[in-house]
């Protein structure tokens, strides 16, 4: 059940944001590479970040180290997806 391609990882990141933040399907579906996340989505506070990271770990079968988590990683949907792809498909 591990994701096999980039688009599958992107779908997972989108679904995790939708499920953890309680976003509508339409809103999550509209996310693009440049959609800003941390600081721009009111639902994504620091507590929600903890949930997003842990749920990504569960769904992608990866382990996210604390020192990898910074503002750049969470800046946009594109940056979070690139991070997840790098972890899940290597």
């Amino acid at each position, binding site marked *: 059940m591990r*994701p096999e391609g980039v688009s599958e990882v992107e779908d997972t990141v989108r679904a995790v944001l939708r*499920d953890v*933040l*309680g976003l509508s399907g339409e809103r999550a579906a509209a996310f693009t590479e440049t959609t800003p996340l941390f600081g721009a989505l009111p639902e994504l506070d620091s*507590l929600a*970040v*903890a949930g997003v990271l842990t749920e990504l770990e569960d*769904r992608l079968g990866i382990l996210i180290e604390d020192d990898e988590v910074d503002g750049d990683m969470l800046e946009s949907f594109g940056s979070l997806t690139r991070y997840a792809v790098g972890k899940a498909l290597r």
Partner: protein
Amino acid sequence: MISSYDWAGGHEAMWRFGPDAGPVVLAALPLFEEANRTRAFLMTLLRALAERGVASALPDLPGSGESLFPTETATLDRWRQAYDGAATLLAGEGRRVHGLGIRGGALVDSYALLHSRWFLSPQPGQAVVRELGRIWQAAEPGADTGDMLGDGPPIPIAGNLVSRTLLGELGGALPMLGPSTRVLRIEGDSQPADRWVPGSPLWRRVEPDNDPALAAVLADDIADWIASCAS
């Protein structure tokens, strides 16, 4: 109906659902904040089981729910003793007891002699500790999560004081998996399971939510599983 049970260290409340005879499901909520997010959903699931003729019980574990124990006195050993106390009471009624655990709730049944176990998205205790560390760091930037399992005072996490004894116990705790255990997960979860069901993980929602359609799917699965265990 609200009932109660005794364990070696005290007396706690226990919800009971369904018929007075036959097999009974002994349920355990996820741990900490996830319990608040899933309580309404689990109640819906247990009522759906009752509609299918399957009885169930949901005990308050010491230091959680309505328990009078302060949260910082909660330990995994106490939770397991308490769960075993509830299982012993139900078995004493001459009934087969089947465990039901959601998430970290799959870690509390280890002392109990159960006929079978059914878990939704079970997680190792290490994952629970890792997430608690993240929540702690979110509230207190600079908190040293490497220090969580050592000696020291209880740690304030999301409004609760959590003892380091409990964190240490959780760090090594694993769900009881084996031939008499059935595991379900939500579609998209990469970890092993016997079945994946469509839905969203309610335990992640910051605002508690419910999902009666998912509860109905799970109730059917549990009822079939218990029937297959009887043959």
